[in-house]
């Protein structure tokens, strides 16, 4: 078990380093730099003195060779210092720390909704013996996956905010403001959970142990929830780990549509301004969340299915 954890941790560190390096290189390949981006953003206000831009570029170190910049930034990043965002002058870590709680609230609510709605749908669809209801329920997830989040968000705002006045159209205020954005984000996520869970539930229900349970006289609900669902939830759990990354990515769109503050908005603004330190901070931080969640998921597997650790330990032993 310890060996397994150490191996996974090492992998996680590798993923973080790769995320940092790749994002650095991609940003470096982009034409321009944050200073020119700022000068360009005010292009409606007139052209900026070239000497001034050169001086500023020097001040921020954007005139140094790429490798020197990389080494410099990586060294400081290892000590937890991602520098200051060029567009605002605020420390990157502080900017992210301010935005994080909002996004956690949003993605947390969305994940919960996705699990409840998606899980509920899958259980119901596989439990019902009415063929038409099953067909109807099973056709919902593909629909949920294929409608663009952007569109769903605007549709919900239009209906529940502009016309019915139930919820505010924008802002981070309170629980009421969380409902529409969380629902928007939960729809594609919940749909994916439902798809995977429904499929594995159907597979599980064909297994011999289900027959055995039935033969022993267990009720339908008991067989469905206690026996089949427990085994079928493993693939769904894997998907949830991956979906966390998708939720964070989805927050870029949802936070923009609903005018919420959060990591998504910070990301969108940082990319537009080509604010290299801030984008790097976002990338590494996003990778950190993704890696952590998947690590947790990996560690939860053995609790659901003891065979997993045995297998990996045995493999490690042979190697």
């Amino acid at each position, binding site marked *: 078990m310890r060996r397994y954890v150490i191996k996974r941790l090492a992998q996680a560190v590798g993923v973080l380093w790769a995320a940092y390096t790749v994002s650095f290189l991609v940003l470096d390949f982009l034409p321009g730099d944050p200073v020119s981006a700022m000068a*360009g953003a005010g292009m409606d206000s007139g052209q900026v003195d070239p000497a001034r*831009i050169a001086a500023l570029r020097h001040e921020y170190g954007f005139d140094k060779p790429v490798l020197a910049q990389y080494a410099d930034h990586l060294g400081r990043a290892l000590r937890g210092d991602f520098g200051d965002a060029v567009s605002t002058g605020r420390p990157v870590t502080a900017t992210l720390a301010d935005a994080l709680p909002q996004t956690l609230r949003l993605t947390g609510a969305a994940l919960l909704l996705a699990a409840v709605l998606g899980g509920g749908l899958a259980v119901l669809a596989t439990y019902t013996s009415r063929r038409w209801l099953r067909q109807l329920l099973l056709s919902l997830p593909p629909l949920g996956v294929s409608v663009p989040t952007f569109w769903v968000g605007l549709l919900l705002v239009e209906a529940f905010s502009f016309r019915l006045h139930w919820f505010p*159209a924008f802002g*981070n205020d309170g629980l009421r403001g969380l409902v529409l954005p969380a629902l928007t984000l939960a729809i594609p996520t919940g749909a994916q959970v439902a798809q995977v869970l429904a499929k594995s539930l159907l597979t599980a229900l064909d297994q011999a142990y289900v027959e055995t349970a039935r033969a022993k006289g267990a009720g339908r609900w008991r067989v469905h929830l206690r026996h089949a669902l427990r085994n079928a939830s493993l693939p769904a759990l894997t998907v949830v780990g991956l979906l966390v990354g998708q939720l964070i990515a989805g927050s870029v769109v949802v936070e923009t549509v609903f005018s919420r503050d959060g990591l998504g908005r910070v990301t969108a603004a940082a990319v537009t301004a080509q604010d290299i330190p801030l984008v790097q901070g976002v990338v590494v931080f996003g990778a950190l969340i993704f890696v952590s969640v998947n690590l947790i998921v990996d560690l939860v597997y053995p609790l659901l299915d003891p065979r997993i650790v045995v297998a990996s330990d045995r493999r490690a032993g042979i190697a």
Partner: protein
Amino acid sequence: MRALPSFGPTRRSSLTALLATGLLLTACGSGGDGSGGASGPARSGGTLTFAVGSDSGCVDPQQVGSNDTIYSVRQIVDSLTDQNPKTGKIVPWLAKSWEVSSDAKTFTFHLRSGVTFSDGSELTAQVVKDNFDAVPKLGALGTLAEGYLSGLESTTVVDPLTVKVTFEQSNAQFLQATSTHSLGIESSASVQRTPQQKCADGVIGSGPFVLKQYVQNQSITLARRTGYDWGSALWSKKGAAYLDKVVFKVVPESGVRSGSLQSGQVDAIGSVGRADEAALKGGQVTLQSRANPGVVFGLGLNNARPLLKDARVRRAIVAAVDRKQIADTVFPTGTRPATSVLAHTTPDWTDLSADLALDTAKAKSLLDAAGWKTGSDGIRAKGGKKLRLTITWFPNAATNQPALELVQQQLKAVGIDVVLKQLQVSQFSTTVQTGDYEVVWTNVTRSDPDILRSSFSTRLTNFYHLPAGSLDSVLAAQAATTDTATRAELVGQAQKLLVQNAYYVPVVELQTQLGVAKKVHGLAFDSGSRVQLHDTWIG
């Protein structure tokens, strides 16, 4: 695993359809009620909620360049002078009077007495000096303010309420610059802070509103300054502002902004584009617009390129562009086709629409005379070389691409093949400075005609690579004269030289458009087409 379908074009069209139908329905639904019609006498109190599209991450008026943020932070500071948006005349504000030396190098301001900042400190000549001393050190975000003060020799305190600003060269534009938000006067305490601190926490000003709260990417909240009694000479209300509070909400999606205004969740919105207009017409909303002063949207020609050195080719381009079609199809309703290099809201603008009329026959004969003969594909050629122009553009406004696609069609009609080349906004300054372009789509907002000198004088950066000539001396002369009539005459001459030599192809004016609920009164544009909220009240 199943593959996800791609949402490319369908996503876009369904979204547009949704916005069009959905918002139109809303517009019908909210038509009946309301108290907009009859407006009684102006009354104090209330909160105005204003939705803007973006947050620039900075709430220091001296460092902000984006309209969405200027709308709010402008209200926190007063300027030495104000500019009448109708006449362009400079009028008193914090300075009750001023003298400009005849060479336009020295400006002496006599400050109003009894002005205090919201931290209780007094406005003195020393505070003004501290401000002007600090501006050149603002850094990356302060380039606009720094530009206004370039060539600054010294600022001296003559007596506690008199301050003298001296420049190395004649600098007639400085007087107008003192009316801008960029040179708004901040308290000594604020001036001593670093540019980053000022950005993040805001500043102490003497304006009719104080910054109550700034939540990044969310909102900027202003509260009325009690005891305010030194408003601009242009304002109708004396003393403090009407509104208790103004809340600027950041709402990036234009459809959500329009819907929020229609459904009464906000009282005013910024950046209304042509696509939003249909949804906002009727109901309890009025659209308010004003053309931005400065250099109009147009084709900035690289006059050093062999093809564009030929004045006949440049004049042909000027004659081949159908400005009205572009203004009427792409830009908000009411947008004017260019009538000069300057927009009609710029002081000393001269109407040269006769020189800018569409005349394809003239364009064709000019090109014929220049030796460019029409080929079998309709594109002209000379010596086996096609008449091809590359227009470089940047995605800083949604109207750029459709406007240029029309230009492309219009020029093709006279036999010029246009290639559109899109670059990133961050590449703008480098592209223009290195001259690595043939034609560039650009505009500049500035409420002083001296913008012609910064844009076109060959003695400065000379972004468009004009040949040195009589234009330079005219531009230099207008910067050195303090006599308004003489200056207007010189500025008129400069516009004629620019248009007649076709150094720049004026196309269309940039228009700022706001959506305002009918119950809101007195929300006025200032000379830079931004808002002034001191006289605003809710009925």
